[in-house]
């Protein structure tokens, strides 16, 4: 599937959904399409790549941590 404005190719269900290596937990991914109104009065096309992750991960120092994240 291709996004209508940017032409970006959308990932499928077999593509890593997170951006955190050594991660184990919940993830949700969304590529939205819509419109936005700017303070200049212009109506803009809107596309998003918004995600969220919650789970256990290994940080750069090798420590196991638990966290919640947004991907913007």
């Amino acid at each position, binding site marked *: 599937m291709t996004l*209508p404005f940017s032409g970006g190719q959308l990932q499928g269900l077999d*593509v890593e959904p997170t951006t955190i290596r050594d*991660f184990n937990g919940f993830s949700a991914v969304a590529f939205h399409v819509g419109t*936005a109104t700017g303070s200049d009065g212009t109506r803009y096309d809107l596309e998003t790549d918004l995600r969220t992750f919650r789970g256990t991960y*290994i940080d750069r120092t090798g420590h196991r941590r638990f966290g919640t994240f947004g991907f913007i």
Partner: protein
Amino acid sequence: MPGTGTPATQVHDNNGGILASGFFWTVPADERNLRVSRNGRRAVLEMRDVPVVDSFQFFGPNQLPATVSFRIEWRATGPFEQRGSGATVPPEDPAAFLGDIAPARSTAHCSGEEWGFSFSSGQASTDRGYAQIGRSRNGVFV
């Protein structure tokens, strides 16, 4: 987030930037920002005044500090299915994970502010996009 037409005519690109921690476009959230249903088929992420940058175009060289706020809802539309190839592919392969993932529908309301400009979206949806929800693991957890 808002843009017009192809990347060449994109006018704003709000993203989380790259943090000192090494996370890119990935910003820490408070546990209260994300609510996930007990069966994992519905989730709501709500964040306010998140510091981001506007790089104006995808990977654009110029960055302006900005903030965004949004409420996103996901609802699974199909069953969870096992996805990914785990350790059977190289770690850099996009399929180097294992997960139970369901297709989903998502809606979002977004707004943002930066010097000299602000925007507010209507209800955006994944009806012409894509959404998924589930659990996944990678790296040492595979």
